[in-house]
């Protein structure tokens, strides 16, 4: 047996294991539970995270020494595919597992790792990310939240925005400005902030789809131990950049997530009389093509990455899926409107408001985590080597 064949068998066995385990364990009562952030649903999601932890599935990508399985990208993607296929609940502590944990492993002190990693793994402490500010969107380095050092503490003042999970997170992984006189990209520091500190106020943002999944976080003389600094003081920009590559990267979103959406388009097309209509078929086919492209782009990136880390090519990933997702929802809006106008089965009509809410969210994805305009700049300059803009 060649090594390659052995590897293939290993992956197939892994898929079978996960598929079986998930089908036996996913809590059916959490499927479709809304809103995902109600206290009651949150408690059940925490319980589910503990089940994952107890079975060793909480963080398969973390090194064994920190309680993970040390699995590479191919295994992670299979886990993700099966997780989405099983309609398992959205992971509660994404920022902790994907962003904070790996960042602490890379930049943290031994004390920080022993303090924070285990509670992330067990979902005892949920994390949010505090990067964006009102005046610092695409231009992240323009952030203004200030941290003055007073003795062994920072005193932090400012405002974060677009913070998902801020209403229930226990900790925030934040960027603050510790040196107002340094050049823009210097003087930024990464700190870990206890969300229960005095002086923190969280105000959920009502979005255009009526949901309140993001929040503003106001910080008013919030005290944070200097010991909570990640990396060097003033080196927060580099810490953040290595973290953002993780955020944009592979492994958090598989093509399987899009299969239910394709399925809904299919139902809508059939229900609104498009089953034999070439224009509708071409449109459906186009979405199938896009989802396949996304699938194989991810597969290729994983096949080419030996160490599970990804370069600026990750920008393709984010750009592609966000545009693909927006296009799928756009088609669905048309088909839902058509089905409504001509009258259709109640099961589909009931889906329309949900589809619409997700439609608006899908358009937001073209902006968050670095707008698609920024991604195109990154591709042009770092992948294609085109010269930088005059500034």
């Amino acid at each position, binding site marked *: 047996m060649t090594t390659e064949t052995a590897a293939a068998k290993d992956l197939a066995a892994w898929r079978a294991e996960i598929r079986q385990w998930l089908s036996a364990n996913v809590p059916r009562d959490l499927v479709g539970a809304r809103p995902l952030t109600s206290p009651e649903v949150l408690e059940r999601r925490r319980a589910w995270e503990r089940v994952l932890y107890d079975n060793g599935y909480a963080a398969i990508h973390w090194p064994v020494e920190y309680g993970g399985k040390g699995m590479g990208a191919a295994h992670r993607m299979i886990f993700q595919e099966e997780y989405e296929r099983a309609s398992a609940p959205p992971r509660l502590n994404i920022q902790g597992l994907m962003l904070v944990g790996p960042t602490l492993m890379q930049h943290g002190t031994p004390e920080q790792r022993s303090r924070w990693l285990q509670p992330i793994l067990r979902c005892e402490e949920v994390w949010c990310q505090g990067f*964006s500010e009102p*005046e610092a*969107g*695409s*231009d992240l380095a*323009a952030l203004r939240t200030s941290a003055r050092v007073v003795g062994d503490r920072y005193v932090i003042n400012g405002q974060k*925005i*677009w913070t998902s999970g801020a209403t229930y997170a226990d900790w925030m992984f934040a960027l603050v400005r510790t040196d107002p006189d340094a050049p823009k990209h210097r003087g930024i520091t990464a700190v870990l902030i206890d969300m229960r500190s005095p002086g923190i106020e969280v105000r959920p*943002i*009502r*979005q*255009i789809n*009526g949901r309140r999944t993001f929040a503003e976080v106001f910080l008013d003389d919030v005290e944070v131990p200097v010991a909570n600094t990640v990396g060097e003081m003033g080196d927060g920009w580099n810490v953040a950049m290595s973290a953002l590559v993780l955020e944009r990267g592979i492994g958090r979103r598989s093509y399987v997530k899009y299969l239910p959406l394709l399925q809904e388009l299919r139902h809508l097309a059939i229900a609104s009389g498009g089953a034999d209509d070439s*224009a509708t078929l071409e449109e459906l086919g186009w979405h199938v093509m896009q989802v396949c492209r996304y699938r194989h782009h991810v597969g290729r990136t994983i096949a080419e990455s030996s160490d599970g880390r990804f370069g600026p090519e990750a920008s393709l990933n984010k750009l592609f899926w966000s545009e693909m997702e927006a296009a799928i929802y*756009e088609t669905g*809006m*048309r088909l*839902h*409107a*058509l089905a*409504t*106008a*001509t*009258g259709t089965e109640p099961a589909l*009509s009931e889906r*329309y*408001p949900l589809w*619409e809410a997700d439609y*608006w969210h899908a*358009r*937001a994805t*073209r*902006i*968050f985590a670095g*707008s*698609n*305009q920024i991604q*195109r700049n990154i591709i042009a300059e770092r992948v294609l080597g085109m010269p930088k803009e005059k*500034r």
Partner: protein
Amino acid sequence: MTLSYGSDATSTELAAGLSDVLSAKCDLDHVRRVWSEGEFDRSLWDEVSSLSFWGALIPEADGGLGVRSEDVVRSLEEFGYSGASLPLTETVAVVVPTIHRFADDEMRDRLLPGLLSGASVSTAAVMPGGTVALFADVADVALVAAEDGLYVLERDQFTVEPVHSPDPTSRLGRIKPRPDAFTPHARLGEGALDEARLRAVWATAAVLNGVSRRMLDLTVEHTKQREQFGRAIGTFQAVKHLAADAWVAVESSRPCSWYAAYAHQEGLPDAAVAASVAMASASDAARLVGDSALQLHGGIGFTWEHPLHFWLKRGKLLEHSYGSRQFHLRTLGVAIRDEQAGSEALFADV
């Protein structure tokens, strides 16, 4: 009569009159309130009624203003621009002129006074295969298409089942006629259905162009104010080109609804093609403009607090009202398949 593309005096004056009322009474706070409270905006309806606007397209002798179809187009754009939530399009452009022309004397005498004064609210469900209408639940009078023509139903002759729409203030609902509603007496004369459809299509195209203009204006303003990387984002070429393409889309769409109204008024052979062109291009533009507007606003455009979404959602509703882009493109495709490209049924001389 020559085609002025909205630049003549009648058109401008009528639009200015409406625009004065709308800008005075329907500012952003008002729009936000209407969206929050969920009630029909009766106070604004009454304001517009006081302009004698509803009879714009019927003769002065019959209590109207006697202007020509293309002269209301600019007003319809202003309405779309304002963000007002009223069955304005349906009343002024569809119901009043269609009843005026196709109803018998008894029905005209009974219904027109209330429609002209604003005492009655009206709507229209006139597209093939559908009985969904805007403002259905507050309508006293509804034009409803059936297989054999167009019917006028009054409030006690139908019930309304609310249906979902991206724009709840437009009160989309399914009109369910009572079993005895489709009486011969309620049926309008021959040609009423085609006429009502044409009217609904070019008029909605005009409103949608107004919606697009507002989104574009909000966006351009934002790109001049919002700074990133030490400069207004409007200085970036990528931002400029999105805005420029949006402007091209809407400004190349607007004259199409002006022409469609004119072709309809004059009975030109390309009136049906012109209406479909107007609506398909308005939908194209609204989608492109809305897309770029949301993208260029960045995060702030996704907040309920920012007004952009009122127009985004209105646009999304109108894109699929009175025939989707696809519906109208197919109509145009069939038209050119069945007629030579040089035929006056596609491109009439003017």
